[in-house]
């Protein structure tokens, strides 16, 4: 895994001017006690995840009878849990199949809202038309609607449109995720697009470029960081989601990993060896994305985020 650094939009503090008063004062503040407290917090925050990672490499018998810390006194190491989870086709395993469902759900559920929201945000920031501000406020205000408000009627609509009887389809999950993502996505991209320098766009207009060209050739390249941060948000949101998947994809064919893992976690512990490896696989994908692109994620966070 990459060692990522958290960077922010804030200007970095000026370099310390030698061991001046402020420098010494700061040292006293971040003295030994402070470092110790920080260390304790860091340990508390990492140990649970580490325990799961270690457990996932322990044999079934060990996982079920003693704690992961026994690994240090009595090490036993195996990849069995991972091969079982990924490859076995028993009724209880087969997490590999759910992993694919997660992928199939996530890709369109990220593409659609990001594209539609960038269209909308462009129109709301750079095309002049009557009622623009009202429309923006309306879309913005929809962020307050918790998605719980939409679940029951939306499910009824899907049942009427797509039918639940025949094979299960992913389209209703994509549709739901796209709708729920749009208010925040439009808001975030509008924040960035509306702050672009107006003279660049005016100049392009004067040169006879139409809105399609300006959107593709000027605006999109300039807001790439914002697009990246929105993409990460939406990816994490969809990949990690349980509620939407439970309501709209609750069946063997369309359920993603989160649904299956939540089910396994609810069982009485017979499947714990699978649970460890399964959980770790489902965690690792977003974590890689997250760590690799953390910079953009943090920028999005600092730009202010509310998600319905």
């Amino acid at each position: 895994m990459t060692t990522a650094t958290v960077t922010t939009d804030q200007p970095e503090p000026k370099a310390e001017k030698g061991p001046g008063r402020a420098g010494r004062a700061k040292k006293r503040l971040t003295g030994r006690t402070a470092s110790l407290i920080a260390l304790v917090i860091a340990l508390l925050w990492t140990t649970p995840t580490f325990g799961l990672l270690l457990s996932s490499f322990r044999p079934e018998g060990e996982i079920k009878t003693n704690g992961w810390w026994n690994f240090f006194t009595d090490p036993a190491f195996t990849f069995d849990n991972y091969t079982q989870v990924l490859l076995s086709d028993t009724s209880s395993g087969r997490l590999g199949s759910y992993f694919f469902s997660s992928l199939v759900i996530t890709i369109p559920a990220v593409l659609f809202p990001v594209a539609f929201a960038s269209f909308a945000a462009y129109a709301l920031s750079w095309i002049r038309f009557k009622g623009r501000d009202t429309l923006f406020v309306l879309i913005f205000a929809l962020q307050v609607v918790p998605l719980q408000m939409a679940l029951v009627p939306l499910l009824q609509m899907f049942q009427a449109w797509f039918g639940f009887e025949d094979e299960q389809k992913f389209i209703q999950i994509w549709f739901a995720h796209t709708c729920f993502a749009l208010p925040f996505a439009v808001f975030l991209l509008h924040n960035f697009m509306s702050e672009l320098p107006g003279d660049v766009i005016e100049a392009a207009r004067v040169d006879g470029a139409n809105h399609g060209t300006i959107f593709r050739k000027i605006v999109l390249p300039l807001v790439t960081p914002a697009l990246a941060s929105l993409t990460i948000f939406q990816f994490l949101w969809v990949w990690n989601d349980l509620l939407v998947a439970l309501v709209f994809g609750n069946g063997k064919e369309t359920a993603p990993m989160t649904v299956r893992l939540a089910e396994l976690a609810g069982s009485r512990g017979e499947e714990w060896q699978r649970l460890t490896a399964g959980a770790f696989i489902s965690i690792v994908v977003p974590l890689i994305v997250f760590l690799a692109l953390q910079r953009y994620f943090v920028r999005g966070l600092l730009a202010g985020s509310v998600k319905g």
Partner: protein
Amino acid sequence: MDQIDILDELPKFGQLGIGVVAFVLVVGFLLFLVDRLPGFDKGRFAAAVFLFPTVLLLAVGLLFPALRTVWLSFFDKDGESFVGVANYTWMFKDPDIRGVLGNTLIWVIAVPILSAGIGLIYAIMIDRLKVEALAKALVFLPMGISFVGAGIIWRFVYAYKPEGEDQIGLLNQIVVWLGGEPQQWLLNPPWNTFFLIVVMVWIQTGFATVVLSASIKAIPTEIVEAARLDGVNAWQMFWRVTVPSIRPAIVVVLVTMSIAALKLFDLVRTMTAGNFKTSVIANEMYTQAFRLLDKGHGAALAVFLFVLVTPIIFYQVRAMRARREER
């Protein structure tokens, strides 16, 4: 061991293919419209094309369903006969649901205070350490983990085995090492709610750390230096300089977390499924609407959630604007 059959997975990827092709077609068609058709470049037409998918999806997928939920909250479990405000009186009279509302209140108070508090302390402690970036990343990491994943991670912390057996949960092992009796952490109210809250705090503290750390770095050095010259100690520095200087950021963090706590669903669903008196509004809404198939009760709970969230979000927007102006 039977091997997984990759052929079984093909229909899924077929659907994915259709989805991606549909995406390319829709986006391509819209861009074609604004690009090629004469007249479509006029402001109004271009705006209409650009806004069409968003407005349509929001109307069909969010606005209309939300209004219908309000409507359904005045009807019975099948959504057929009008029952007035019966679903709402049920919500406030039924002792179980009152317990649920009480739990939600505890979440909304405890999660922001604990996460922001720990996040603030941590941000100050690691400020300008050599390993600051790494230290931040460690605490920020849980933000990328799903609630389901976090629930499983913490199951291995809270796991219980009867006294005398080897413990597999870290917390009980520590209790045993200290000479205590192992506990069923997630089974006994009211403390089980507290143990669930710990998990949420674990997830959210990274967010607080990152946002607060950014504003701590933005405090002008002159202010800190001037305070130093006045001879304040670390404690006074914290309360009189640091906290007032980053107050807007603290407000944003507290408010964002209280919204997250209000809407919390996954964690409770995964760890206790709302049993043992740990349910919260969002989980109860799911249980009522999709497990007990009572649309009226589910709708009323959803509307109540909306009523609770709305003022907080308006406040958040104001706080965010204030913070931006201060920069």
